[in-house]
């Protein structure tokens, strides 16, 4: 299942780092960050608890780029 979330991030390389961090989060099958549209498209693994996974995604993103936001 795919879902799109709004994000806020200032630099393109940070967006790439967020993408890498989110992709490695448990429960996430694949993740694409679209810096130009400020969007994150997350594909969840089957049976994953979406809101819990997204909390982790946000935490992992903040770990690599403290100045970012994921709107869940």
């Amino acid at each position, binding site marked *: 299942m795919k879902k799109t979330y709004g994000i806020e991030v*200032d*630099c*393109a*390389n940070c967006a*790439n*780092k967020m993408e890498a961090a989110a992709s490695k989060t448990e429960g996430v099958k694949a993740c*694409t960050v*679209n*810096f*130009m*549209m400020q*969007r994150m*498209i997350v594909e969840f693994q089957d049976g994953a608890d979406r809101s819990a996974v997204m909390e982790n995604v946000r935490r992992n993103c903040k*770990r*690599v*780029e*403290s*100045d970012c936001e994921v709107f869940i």
Partner: protein
Amino acid sequence: MNRKQRIMLIRILVSAAILAALSFIPSSGVLRFILYMVPYFIVGYDILLKAIKGILRGQVLDECFLMASATVGAVALAIYEGSGDYTEAIAVMLFYQTGELFQSYAVDRSRRNITELMDIRPDYANVEKDGSLVKADPDDVEPGTIIVVQPGEKVPIDGVVVEGTSTLNTSALTGESLPRDIAAGDDIISGSINMTGVLKIRTTKEFGESTVSKILDLVENASSRKSKSEDFISKFARIYTPAVCISALVLAIIPPLVNLIIGNPAGWDSWIYRALTFLVISCPCALVISIPLSFFAGIGGASNAGVLVKGSNYLETLSKTKTVVFDKTGTLTRGVFEVSGIHHSTMEDGKLIEYAALAESASSHPISKSLQKAYGKAIDRNRVKDIEEISGNGVTATVDGHAIACGNERLMKSLGIEAIPCHSVGTIIHIAIDGDYAGHIIISDIIKPNAAEAIRRMKEAGVRKTVMLTGDTARVADQVAEALGIDEVYRNLLPGDKVEKVESLLMESHDGGKIAFVGDGINDAPVLRRADIGIAMGAMGSDAAIEAADVVLMDDDPLKISKAIRISRRCLRIVYQNIVFAIGVKLICLLLGAIGFASMWLAIFADVGVMVIAVLNAIRALFVKKL
């Protein structure tokens, strides 16, 4: 400019002003250090904080860490050498922040410009309620509602016109400014602008399912499908930054140690300075921002020209197209049968068509429809009697008291009439009146007026081979191919054969040249999917085509194909320019830095200046009008 950017701008200006003022105030020692640290912290405190946070989290090699260690290092050197020259460190931080500010501003701006360009989203729908018009959110309008569109307004939702006539401007959808006439009973597509009359429309879809929403969705999501160039750059950035940092460390330690070993003075300060310059250059932002921005601008520009590209990856593939395969009907020809010629007529052409149309009036065959269309007037059935269809051959009838025979050569032969054979391609309808031959009418699929020009321009745009696939017989196919200058023709194909043909063409191309397939999207979805890149034409209102294709041409003008290819080529050219330019300048500066020719000033240009130029260059991809 948003709040964050304004605060940043103020910090930069204040810091720069203090720095300028300090250069007139003579000071020394500890006081000087404290004074100079004021502008440094004003402009750079967030970077320092982020760097510390990064270290605590084990994320050592990010930009903030680089900038922080470069500037702190420069300050430390100034203290160690006793020069008290802190300006350089502060200036580096200033320029870095200015560059970041510019980047975020430029990206914001271009994002807004591009989305504005694509902004075909209607704000409201006029719904009639108790005799007066109410502006409603298009999202809330149910299918089957009657909405009113005034002149000058956008059609918000797909539907059918129930009342009124008008002309429509579809340029927002197709990039074509030619107005279209519309009247009651016609399907109407959201996103077009009503120009002249008031229209009442019964909606047939929800807003979310309407053409406008679909197009917006498609274009906005296009930049999420990343191209190989983008993947390359993000991989490169991942290696580049650590590599430069390690070389900086090596540069700071090894040469002085070597110096010590061979008995020279170590020269720690100059080597550390060189290493710090390395750190400034190592920020990969210029590269990372300019590539997606170029693609985004390219996709935005293309959509403005009526070419929807579903992803950056498709834009990239499109630019490598060397072979274009066409499905003949609907792409190069109109796919509608029309009277294309009248030969050997013994009377006025119009009269002959009138007789033929009347004689065929009972038939529902496409041929009869084209005759009636060519006749153009209402058929008066009372003039026609004794209609007899001779299956597979034609019709005989009595029109205005004359015995009319209308059909193929076999029909003429069976009636003992000698027909004059025709060399033209198409369906030939011979006509005899009262037993005498009266001429023949040719009905054929019309080649689009721009088709030959389109093929020529494609060749100019770098396409090596054009191939036409068709279910038609050899004669028709060859004539069309010759008229248009197509290189290869495959005839008598069943729909399944087309997939096979494209597959065998895919097998043949070894040199990385991509194969594009152009279809009308209605019954060639499998082929559209199979080709390297599927282009659907005339897709306005056809969901199936939009689904199946990678590139969607909103109208059915074949010139758009070469335009799409040109747009993609230029966009990719800009991408490569940016990659080569950014990497090139950085490598040169690294080299100069290593041998001691580059100061931090040059380094900050390599970082910020390159990014500014790359961003400006990327935005060029947006301008596609002249292609």
